[in-house]
Protein backbone atom coordinates (compact mmCIF):
# COMPACT_ATOMS: atom_id res chain seq x y z
CA UNK A 1 0.00 0.00 0.00
CA UNK A 2 2.71 2.46 1.01
CA UNK A 3 4.84 1.35 -1.91
CA UNK A 4 1.92 2.12 -4.21
CA UNK A 5 1.67 5.66 -2.86
CA UNK A 6 5.40 6.09 -3.45
CA UNK A 7 5.02 4.87 -7.06
CA UNK A 8 2.19 7.31 -7.71
CA UNK A 9 3.94 10.26 -6.12
CA UNK A 10 7.27 9.58 -7.81
CA UNK A 11 5.52 9.27 -11.14
CA UNK A 12 3.51 12.42 -10.52
CA UNK A 13 6.45 14.56 -9.40
CA UNK A 14 8.72 13.31 -12.17
CA UNK A 15 6.11 13.78 -14.86
CA UNK A 16 5.22 17.26 -13.68
CA UNK A 17 8.93 18.16 -13.65
CA UNK A 18 9.22 17.07 -17.29
CA UNK A 19 6.17 19.13 -18.14
CA UNK A 20 7.55 22.19 -16.40
CA UNK A 21 10.76 22.25 -18.45
CA UNK A 22 9.25 24.37 -21.20
CA UNK A 23 7.17 26.84 -19.15
CA UNK A 24 9.95 27.40 -16.59
CA UNK A 25 12.71 27.88 -19.12
CA UNK A 26 10.54 30.10 -21.25
CA UNK A 27 10.22 32.97 -18.80
CA UNK A 28 13.78 32.91 -17.47
CA UNK A 29 16.15 31.90 -20.19
CA UNK A 30 16.39 33.45 -23.61
CA UNK A 31 15.69 30.40 -25.74
CA UNK A 32 17.47 30.85 -29.08
CA UNK A 33 15.15 30.97 -32.08
CA UNK A 34 16.88 27.92 -33.53
CA UNK A 35 16.14 25.88 -30.38
CA UNK A 36 12.48 26.92 -30.47
CA UNK A 37 12.31 25.93 -34.10
CA UNK A 38 13.82 22.53 -33.30
CA UNK A 39 11.46 22.11 -30.34
CA UNK A 40 8.36 22.56 -32.46
CA UNK A 41 9.79 20.36 -35.23
CA UNK A 42 10.70 17.84 -32.52
CA UNK A 43 7.15 17.83 -31.21
CA UNK A 44 5.86 16.88 -34.67
CA UNK A 45 8.56 14.21 -34.97
CA UNK A 46 7.49 12.76 -31.61
CA UNK A 47 3.82 12.81 -32.59
CA UNK A 48 4.52 11.04 -35.90
CA UNK A 49 6.66 8.45 -34.10
CA UNK A 50 3.84 7.95 -31.58
CA UNK A 51 1.28 7.45 -34.32
CA UNK A 52 3.54 5.06 -36.25
CA UNK A 53 4.39 2.90 -33.25
CA UNK A 54 0.83 3.20 -31.93
CA UNK A 55 -0.61 2.09 -35.26
CA UNK A 56 1.69 -0.85 -35.88
CA UNK A 57 2.99 -2.17 -32.58
CA UNK A 58 1.69 -3.42 -29.26
CA UNK A 59 3.96 -4.52 -26.43
CA UNK A 60 7.03 -4.58 -28.69
CA UNK A 61 5.42 -6.75 -31.37
CA UNK A 62 3.08 -6.38 -34.33
CA UNK A 63 -0.35 -5.07 -33.31
CA UNK A 64 -2.29 -7.32 -35.71
CA UNK A 65 -4.08 -6.29 -38.90
CA UNK A 66 -7.29 -4.66 -37.66
CA UNK A 67 -5.65 -1.67 -36.01
CA UNK A 68 -3.25 -0.69 -38.84
CA UNK A 69 -6.09 -1.15 -41.33
CA UNK A 70 -8.28 1.21 -39.29
CA UNK A 71 -5.49 3.77 -38.99
CA UNK A 72 -4.84 3.49 -42.74
CA UNK A 73 -8.50 4.25 -43.49
CA UNK A 74 -8.33 7.20 -41.09
CA UNK A 75 -5.13 8.40 -42.74
CA UNK A 76 -6.62 8.18 -46.23
CA UNK A 77 -9.69 10.12 -45.08
CA UNK A 78 -7.44 12.77 -43.52
CA UNK A 79 -5.43 12.94 -46.75
CA UNK A 80 -8.68 13.57 -48.63
CA UNK A 81 -9.33 16.39 -46.15
CA UNK A 82 -12.37 14.68 -44.67
CA UNK A 83 -13.78 16.31 -41.53
CA UNK A 84 -12.10 15.35 -38.28
CA UNK A 85 -15.13 13.38 -37.07
CA UNK A 86 -15.13 11.28 -40.24
CA UNK A 87 -11.43 10.48 -39.84
CA UNK A 88 -11.77 9.36 -36.24
CA UNK A 89 -15.01 7.43 -36.59
CA UNK A 90 -13.83 5.89 -39.88
CA UNK A 91 -10.66 4.55 -38.27
CA UNK A 92 -12.39 3.16 -35.19
CA UNK A 93 -15.29 1.67 -37.16
CA UNK A 94 -12.95 -0.06 -39.62
CA UNK A 95 -10.95 -1.67 -36.82
CA UNK A 96 -14.10 -2.62 -34.92
CA UNK A 97 -15.78 -4.14 -38.01
CA UNK A 98 -12.65 -6.10 -38.95
CA UNK A 99 -12.51 -7.54 -35.44
CA UNK A 100 -16.20 -8.36 -35.62
CA UNK A 101 -15.39 -10.24 -38.82
CA UNK A 102 -12.71 -12.20 -37.02
CA UNK A 103 -9.61 -10.33 -38.17
CA UNK A 104 -7.22 -9.82 -35.29
Amino acid at each position, binding site marked *: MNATVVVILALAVGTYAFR*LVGPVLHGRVEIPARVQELASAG*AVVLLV*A*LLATGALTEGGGFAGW*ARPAGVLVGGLLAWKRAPFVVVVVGAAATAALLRLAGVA
Partner: protein
Amino acid sequence: MRSPKRTPSTPQTPSARSGDRSLLRDSSLVWLASGIVGVSFGAVSVAGGLPLWVPVLMSVVVYAGSAQFSAVGVLLAGGGPLAAAATGLLLNTRTAAFSLAVAEILGTSRAARFLGAHLVTDETVAFALAQSDPVRQRRAFWISGLGLFAVWNTGVLAGALAGGALGDTARYGLDAAFPAVLIALVLPTLRADAAVRRCALLGAALALAVTPAVPAGVPVLLALAGLVLHRKPAAGPEGPAGPAGPAGPAGPAHEEAAV
Protein backbone atom coordinates in the same frame (compact mmCIF):
# COMPACT_ATOMS: atom_id res chain seq x y z
CA MET B 1 -9.39 38.30 -24.11
CA ARG B 2 -9.50 39.30 -27.74
CA SER B 3 -6.60 40.93 -29.44
CA PRO B 4 -7.60 44.42 -30.60
CA LYS B 5 -5.28 44.17 -33.57
CA ARG B 6 -5.83 42.34 -36.81
CA THR B 7 -2.72 40.53 -37.87
CA PRO B 8 -2.30 41.22 -41.57
CA SER B 9 -0.50 37.93 -42.18
CA THR B 10 -3.62 35.90 -41.34
CA PRO B 11 -6.32 37.32 -43.57
CA GLN B 12 -8.72 34.40 -43.30
CA THR B 13 -8.91 34.11 -39.52
CA PRO B 14 -12.38 32.84 -38.67
CA SER B 15 -14.27 34.69 -35.99
CA ALA B 16 -13.31 33.62 -32.50
CA ARG B 17 -16.73 32.25 -31.77
CA SER B 18 -17.08 29.96 -34.77
CA GLY B 19 -13.43 29.00 -34.24
CA ASP B 20 -14.19 27.94 -30.69
CA ARG B 21 -17.15 25.92 -31.88
CA SER B 22 -15.05 23.94 -34.33
CA LEU B 23 -12.37 23.44 -31.66
CA LEU B 24 -15.02 22.18 -29.26
CA ARG B 25 -16.47 19.87 -31.87
CA ASP B 26 -13.12 18.35 -32.80
CA SER B 27 -11.95 18.15 -29.18
CA SER B 28 -15.13 16.48 -28.02
CA LEU B 29 -14.40 13.44 -30.18
CA VAL B 30 -11.01 13.08 -28.54
CA TRP B 31 -12.66 13.55 -25.14
CA LEU B 32 -15.15 10.81 -25.91
CA ALA B 33 -12.46 8.37 -26.97
CA SER B 34 -10.26 9.29 -23.99
CA GLY B 35 -13.20 8.96 -21.64
CA ILE B 36 -13.78 5.39 -22.76
CA VAL B 37 -10.07 4.61 -22.44
CA GLY B 38 -10.25 6.16 -18.96
CA VAL B 39 -13.16 3.90 -18.08
CA SER B 40 -11.13 0.91 -19.17
CA PHE B 41 -8.12 2.09 -17.15
CA GLY B 42 -10.23 2.35 -14.01
CA ALA B 43 -11.86 -1.00 -14.68
CA VAL B 44 -8.59 -2.81 -15.47
CA SER B 45 -6.92 -1.46 -12.34
CA VAL B 46 -9.71 -2.43 -9.98
CA ALA B 47 -10.35 -5.76 -11.67
CA GLY B 48 -6.63 -6.51 -11.24
CA GLY B 49 -6.95 -6.09 -7.49
CA LEU B 50 -5.87 -2.50 -6.85
CA PRO B 51 -7.99 -0.44 -4.45
CA LEU B 52 -10.27 2.15 -6.06
CA TRP B 53 -8.22 5.15 -4.93
CA VAL B 54 -5.11 4.01 -6.82
CA PRO B 55 -6.35 4.56 -10.40
CA VAL B 56 -8.34 7.63 -9.32
CA LEU B 57 -5.45 9.37 -7.53
CA MET B 58 -3.01 8.40 -10.25
CA SER B 59 -5.21 9.87 -12.97
CA VAL B 60 -5.44 13.22 -11.22
CA VAL B 61 -1.81 13.69 -10.19
CA VAL B 62 0.08 11.80 -12.91
CA TYR B 63 -2.44 12.38 -15.72
CA ALA B 64 -0.76 10.48 -18.54
CA GLY B 65 -2.68 7.61 -20.09
CA SER B 66 0.05 5.39 -21.49
CA ALA B 67 2.31 5.85 -18.46
CA GLN B 68 -0.57 5.00 -16.12
CA PHE B 69 -1.39 1.83 -18.02
CA SER B 70 2.25 0.74 -17.95
CA ALA B 71 2.78 1.56 -14.28
CA VAL B 72 -0.36 -0.33 -13.26
CA GLY B 73 0.59 -3.16 -15.61
CA VAL B 74 3.96 -3.50 -13.93
CA LEU B 75 2.38 -3.30 -10.46
CA LEU B 76 -0.23 -5.94 -11.27
CA ALA B 77 2.42 -8.19 -12.81
CA GLY B 78 4.34 -8.02 -9.54
CA GLY B 79 7.18 -6.03 -11.07
CA GLY B 80 7.70 -3.92 -7.98
CA PRO B 81 7.24 -0.20 -7.29
CA LEU B 82 10.62 0.89 -8.62
CA ALA B 83 10.10 -0.75 -12.01
CA ALA B 84 6.56 0.66 -12.19
CA ALA B 85 7.69 4.22 -11.54
CA ALA B 86 10.69 3.93 -13.86
CA THR B 87 8.58 2.61 -16.74
CA GLY B 88 6.03 5.38 -16.35
CA LEU B 89 8.68 8.08 -16.13
CA LEU B 90 10.48 6.78 -19.20
CA LEU B 91 7.24 6.97 -21.15
CA ASN B 92 6.64 10.52 -19.98
CA THR B 93 10.10 11.84 -20.83
CA ARG B 94 8.71 13.06 -24.13
CA THR B 95 6.49 15.56 -22.31
CA ALA B 96 9.65 17.60 -21.62
CA ALA B 97 10.11 18.08 -25.35
CA PHE B 98 6.40 18.78 -25.75
CA SER B 99 6.39 21.37 -22.97
CA LEU B 100 9.24 23.18 -24.69
CA ALA B 101 7.25 23.24 -27.92
CA VAL B 102 4.12 24.70 -26.33
CA ALA B 103 5.73 26.92 -23.67
CA GLU B 104 4.88 29.97 -25.75
CA ILE B 105 1.30 28.81 -26.23
CA LEU B 106 0.30 28.27 -22.59
CA GLY B 107 0.20 31.95 -21.69
CA THR B 108 2.44 34.28 -19.77
CA SER B 109 0.88 34.39 -16.30
CA ARG B 110 2.34 32.23 -13.57
CA ALA B 111 -0.97 30.40 -13.08
CA ALA B 112 -1.32 29.65 -16.80
CA ARG B 113 2.18 28.22 -16.97
CA PHE B 114 1.98 26.06 -13.86
CA LEU B 115 -1.55 24.82 -14.52
CA GLY B 116 -1.00 24.51 -18.26
CA ALA B 117 2.11 22.38 -17.73
CA HIS B 118 -0.02 19.67 -16.11
CA LEU B 119 -2.26 19.59 -19.19
CA VAL B 120 0.60 18.91 -21.61
CA THR B 121 -0.30 15.61 -23.28
CA ASP B 122 0.14 14.12 -26.75
CA GLU B 123 -3.38 15.17 -27.66
CA THR B 124 -3.30 18.77 -26.42
CA VAL B 125 0.09 19.41 -28.02
CA ALA B 126 -1.08 17.97 -31.32
CA PHE B 127 -4.26 20.03 -31.17
CA ALA B 128 -2.46 23.27 -30.35
CA LEU B 129 0.30 22.88 -32.92
CA ALA B 130 -2.26 22.07 -35.62
CA GLN B 131 -3.71 25.59 -35.40
CA SER B 132 -2.50 28.33 -37.68
CA ASP B 133 -2.28 31.44 -35.51
CA PRO B 134 -1.10 32.00 -31.90
CA VAL B 135 -4.48 33.06 -30.51
CA ARG B 136 -6.15 29.97 -31.88
CA GLN B 137 -3.26 27.78 -30.67
CA ARG B 138 -3.80 29.01 -27.12
CA ARG B 139 -7.56 28.46 -27.30
CA ALA B 140 -7.06 25.00 -28.76
CA PHE B 141 -4.62 24.05 -26.00
CA TRP B 142 -6.88 25.17 -23.17
CA ILE B 143 -10.17 23.94 -24.62
CA SER B 144 -8.81 20.50 -25.45
CA GLY B 145 -6.72 20.32 -22.28
CA LEU B 146 -9.33 21.27 -19.67
CA GLY B 147 -11.97 19.10 -21.31
CA LEU B 148 -9.62 16.14 -21.62
CA PHE B 149 -8.61 16.43 -17.95
CA ALA B 150 -12.24 16.48 -16.82
CA VAL B 151 -13.36 13.63 -19.06
CA TRP B 152 -10.33 11.43 -18.41
CA ASN B 153 -10.69 11.63 -14.62
CA THR B 154 -14.46 11.19 -14.71
CA GLY B 155 -14.01 8.17 -16.96
CA VAL B 156 -11.43 6.57 -14.67
CA LEU B 157 -13.67 7.04 -11.63
CA ALA B 158 -16.66 5.59 -13.48
CA GLY B 159 -14.62 2.63 -14.68
CA ALA B 160 -13.19 1.95 -11.24
CA LEU B 161 -16.71 1.99 -9.77
CA ALA B 162 -18.31 -0.04 -12.52
CA GLY B 163 -15.64 -2.69 -12.87
CA GLY B 164 -15.32 -4.51 -16.16
CA ALA B 165 -18.77 -3.66 -17.55
CA LEU B 166 -17.40 -2.43 -20.88
CA GLY B 167 -15.34 -5.54 -21.44
CA ASP B 168 -12.46 -5.46 -23.88
CA THR B 169 -12.42 -1.94 -25.34
CA ALA B 170 -10.46 -3.16 -28.36
CA ARG B 171 -13.90 -4.20 -29.59
CA TYR B 172 -14.74 -0.54 -30.21
CA GLY B 173 -11.68 0.03 -32.36
CA LEU B 174 -10.47 2.89 -30.15
CA ASP B 175 -6.89 1.72 -30.48
CA ALA B 176 -7.12 2.71 -34.15
CA ALA B 177 -8.81 6.03 -33.36
CA PHE B 178 -5.87 7.55 -31.50
CA PRO B 179 -3.21 7.15 -34.20
CA ALA B 180 -5.81 8.41 -36.71
CA VAL B 181 -6.41 11.51 -34.55
CA LEU B 182 -2.69 12.18 -34.60
CA ILE B 183 -2.55 11.76 -38.39
CA ALA B 184 -5.39 14.24 -38.85
CA LEU B 185 -3.64 16.75 -36.59
CA VAL B 186 -0.10 16.54 -37.97
CA LEU B 187 -0.95 16.09 -41.64
CA PRO B 188 -1.29 19.84 -42.41
CA THR B 189 2.18 20.49 -40.94
CA LEU B 190 3.66 17.54 -42.81
CA ARG B 191 2.14 18.75 -46.08
CA ALA B 192 3.40 22.30 -45.63
CA ASP B 193 6.88 21.76 -44.20
CA ALA B 194 9.25 19.52 -46.14
CA ALA B 195 12.01 19.78 -43.53
CA VAL B 196 9.75 18.57 -40.74
CA ARG B 197 8.40 15.85 -43.04
CA ARG B 198 11.89 14.45 -43.65
CA CYS B 199 12.69 14.48 -39.92
CA ALA B 200 9.38 12.85 -39.01
CA LEU B 201 9.74 10.05 -41.57
CA LEU B 202 13.27 9.23 -40.45
CA GLY B 203 12.22 9.44 -36.80
CA ALA B 204 9.21 7.17 -37.26
CA ALA B 205 11.33 4.63 -39.18
CA LEU B 206 13.93 4.62 -36.41
CA ALA B 207 11.24 4.22 -33.74
CA LEU B 208 9.63 1.29 -35.55
CA ALA B 209 12.99 -0.37 -36.18
CA VAL B 210 14.02 -0.37 -32.52
CA THR B 211 10.60 -1.13 -30.98
CA PRO B 212 11.10 -4.90 -30.66
CA ALA B 213 14.49 -4.46 -29.00
CA VAL B 214 14.16 -1.67 -26.42
CA PRO B 215 11.84 -0.83 -23.48
CA ALA B 216 8.60 1.07 -24.13
CA GLY B 217 9.17 4.82 -24.30
CA VAL B 218 12.64 4.59 -25.80
CA PRO B 219 11.57 4.21 -29.47
CA VAL B 220 9.68 7.49 -29.51
CA LEU B 221 12.57 9.33 -27.86
CA LEU B 222 15.01 7.89 -30.39
CA ALA B 223 12.78 9.33 -33.11
CA LEU B 224 14.12 12.76 -32.13
CA ALA B 225 17.35 11.71 -33.87
CA GLY B 226 15.38 12.39 -37.06
CA LEU B 227 15.97 16.08 -36.34
CA VAL B 228 19.48 15.73 -37.79
CA LEU B 229 17.77 16.23 -41.15
CA HIS B 230 16.43 19.60 -40.01
CA ARG B 231 18.79 21.99 -41.76
CA LYS B 232 19.18 25.48 -40.50
CA PRO B 233 17.68 27.99 -42.94
CA ALA B 234 20.17 29.54 -45.36
CA ALA B 235 20.54 32.80 -43.43
CA GLY B 236 23.05 32.70 -40.57
CA PRO B 237 26.05 30.47 -39.82
CA GLU B 238 25.86 26.70 -39.41
CA GLY B 239 25.80 25.19 -35.94
CA PRO B 240 24.42 26.49 -32.64
CA ALA B 241 24.81 30.21 -32.12
CA GLY B 242 27.33 31.08 -29.43
CA PRO B 243 26.31 33.32 -26.52
CA ALA B 244 28.60 36.03 -27.87
CA GLY B 245 26.76 36.13 -31.18
CA PRO B 246 24.64 39.10 -32.13
CA ALA B 247 21.49 37.97 -30.32
CA GLY B 248 18.52 39.34 -32.18
CA PRO B 249 15.23 39.80 -30.34
CA ALA B 250 14.07 36.20 -30.01
CA GLY B 251 10.60 37.23 -28.93
CA PRO B 252 7.98 36.36 -31.52
CA ALA B 253 6.09 39.05 -33.34
CA HIS B 254 2.79 38.47 -31.58
CA GLU B 255 4.23 38.95 -28.07
CA GLU B 256 2.65 42.37 -27.70
CA ALA B 257 -0.83 40.96 -28.22
CA ALA B 258 -0.43 38.51 -25.33
CA VAL B 259 -2.03 39.58 -22.09
